[in-house]
Every structure is written in C-alpha cells, then in structure tokens.
C-alpha cells in the first residue's frame, strides 16, 4: 500500500513541480486579494450608497458561493462572453476574489476595533482621510488582523487544490495523473497529502505563535 522509496524518488520532481504551481497561485491570490479586501472593506464602510452596494455585492458573492463554483464561473463561464483566459489566470482571479471577500470582513472588523479616540485625534490633528488611514488606522488595524490573515492564507493554499477541476497542473492534479497512469492511486495521493501537511502544519504552528504574540500586544 505504501509508496516505495523508488516510487517516491521518481514521482518527486513531478509532485514538487505541482507544489510550486500551488504556491505560486497562493502567493498571487494573496498579493492581489488582500489589497482588494482592503478596498472592499473601505467600500463597505463608504458613505456613497452605490460604492457600498457594489462592495457588499462583491463580498457576499465571494463569500456566499463556494470557491469551486467561483473558479468554474470564471474559467468555464467567461468564455461564453467571448473572453477566454488560461487556467492559471482563472485560478488567480477566482481565488483573489475569494480572498478579497473574506479578508475584507477581517480587515473591516480590525479597523472598527480601533478606539474611537484615535480617529478623533487624527481629525484634531487635521489629517485628511487618506493620511488618517495610512498613519493611524492601518498600522494598528493590520496588527490586529495579522493572525486572521495568516490563518486565511493557509486556507487559500489548500484552496488551490480546487484548481484540479480547471485542469491546472497543481499538486492534486499531478498526484491524480500519476495515479491514473501507474494505477498506484493511494501511494501517489498519499505523497501529495504529505507535501500539503509539510507546508500547512508548520504554517499553522506559526499562526498559533503569532496569535499568542498578538494577544500579548492587545493586553498591554
């Protein structure tokens, strides 16, 4: 049942190639998704009704629909409007949307957790809204949001496995392909599982550590 050493050795380059794609998709989704989340958070808090409505719509769809459906919506749906994109781009767009929707809630909550006096002080100092955000709210808010954002990053890393359905050659696709050509499904999938665990478990321990540190900061 278990993979032999020789098997692992021959499969490893293939699997690591898949892992690298999974990590690239994760990194790009976070890179675009978190700033998008910040924009959505500000949009939801905006005074203009149209901005608030659009932001709420994007957040609710991004959170309400399963990531798998978002992914297929972008990859299989967009071509019917005449816009065809590759599976890598579709993966990044869908997961960045997903990230933006979830992180906007995290960021909004952390911005609202900042004591009201801070905003009053910023106004008293004559800071405009952008400076208030840049120098007062974000540095404090992001510190509160950090553990939750890191935790979400692990979920997005695992979420890249959904890209199997749009034929992106990431880790699960590679393991499945090895399984279907050698008929050694269990060992091949097990190897992929171990690789996921090798990233996710240390990352989870790191998040726990950061969470404790962040807790200490809040207690002071």
């Amino acid at each position, binding site marked *: 049942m278990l993979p032999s050493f020789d098997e692992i050795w021959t499969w490893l380059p293939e699997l690591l190639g898949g892992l690298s794609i999974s990590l690239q998709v994760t990194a790009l989704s976070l890179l675009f998704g978190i700033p998008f989340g910040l924009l959505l958070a500000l949009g939801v808090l905006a005074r203009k009704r149209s901005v608030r409505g659009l932001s709420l719509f994007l957040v609710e769809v991004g959170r309400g629909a*399963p990531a798998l459906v978002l992914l297929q919506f972008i990859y299989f749906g967009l071509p019917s*409007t005449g816009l065809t994109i590759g599976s890598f781009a579709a993966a990044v767009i869908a997961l960045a949307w997903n990230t933006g929707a979830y992180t906007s809630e995290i960021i909004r909550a952390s911005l609202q957790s900042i004591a009201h006096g801070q905003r009053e002080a910023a106004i008293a100092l004559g800071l405009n809204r952008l400076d208030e955000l840049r120098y007062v709210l974000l540095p404090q808010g992001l510190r509160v949001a950090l553990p939750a954002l890191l935790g979400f990053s692990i979920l997005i890393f695992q979420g890249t*496995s959904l890209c199997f359905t749009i034929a992106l050659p990431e880790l699960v696709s590679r393991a499945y392909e090895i399984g279907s050509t050698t008929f050694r499904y269990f060992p091949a999938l097990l190897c992929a599982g171990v690789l996921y665990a090798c990233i996710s478990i240390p990352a989870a321990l790191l998040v726990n550590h950061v969470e404790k540190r962040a807790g200490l900061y809040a207690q002071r």
Partner: protein
Amino acid sequence: MSVADLLPILRGLGWTVALTAGAFIIGAILGVPLLVARQSRLAPVRFLAMTLIQIIRAIPPILWLFIIFFGVGMTLLPISPFNAALAGLGLIAAANMAEIYRGALSSIHFGQWEASAALDLGRFWTVTDIVAPQAFRVALPSAASYLIGLMKETAVASTIGVTELAFQGNQLSQMTFRGLEVFAMVGLFYVLLSLPIAWLSRVADGYLQAKVAR
C-alpha cells in the same frame, strides 16, 4: 434559463443537503471522542489526538476525497462516490467540530468545575449537567457558521461524481454552453441554502440566551 434547466439543479440540491447534513452529523458525533482524547490527562493520548486533528486539517478536502475514493476505493474496498464524500467530509468535520467544542469548553469559567467538585458531583455529572449545557450555547454560533462553510465545501464532491449542485451545474454548462448564467444560478442556490441555516442559528441562539437571561 428554462424550467427544464432548473430540474437537474433541484435534484442536485437534494444531494447537497443530504451530504451536508450527513457529514455534519458524523462530525458532531465523532468530534466528541476526539475532544475527550484531546483533553485527556494522559500526554500520549493528548498528543495523538492533537496530531490527528492537525493532519486532518492540513490536507485539503478534495485530496481527502481522492484518497478515500480512488486510493482506498479502487484497491482495498469498493466505495460509492456518495459514501466516499460522506466519509471524507465527515472526517474533516470531526476534526473541526472537536476544535469548536474545545473553544467552547475553554470559555467555561473554572469556578464552575470547582463548584461542581465542592458539590461532589463527580466528573461525569459535572460534564453532562453543568459544563455541557453551557458550552453548547457558546458552541452554537461557531457550529452554525461551520455548517454553512461545510455546505459550500460539499461542492468538491462533484469531482468524484456525486451528482450534487456543483456537478449538475457543470453538466448543464457543458450541455448549454451558457456557463456564466448556469454557474451564477448554482452560486445563488448555495447562498439561498445558507440563509435558513443562518436564520435558524440566530433564532436558536436568541432562545438559548433568553433562557439564561433572568
């Protein structure tokens, strides 16, 4: 979209609900022994449960389903797609529910344990009569939001051929070449499914809060 198009989606809806409910019940039940092991006084047992929870949560759901359906199902004992999905998602739910229970348990003030000890209630009755009812109330909102998350996670079962919502949407988009509308519709159905769960959880929470607020 015509009414004929809606029919397969409605059929898929039934499977999604069945899978969600089944996996959640399995998780809610299996989560209890996992929690007990996680809180055990014996260090090896505690460590084992902790490792198990970590490993279950470290591997993405889709891979769990593949390991069970293709890995175990094709070599050891044959398993139907629905049962494989139920087993995989149930396993993941158990790990997550154990963590939700643990969070709720840690919110119970230690004075409650001390008072029970002073009354000589014994460990079993302390848990069933004093701690569990209070912890249940704390766990309810997070369990409800997990249930909604789990419902969306069942979409991955489409990859092993369970004919639920996402699967039907996929089929329909391939037949009609109108992916945009079909997937928008499927997404809408997931949102619609999550509304009654959120509403029920709020009602239940309000009811339980009212019971203690005297």
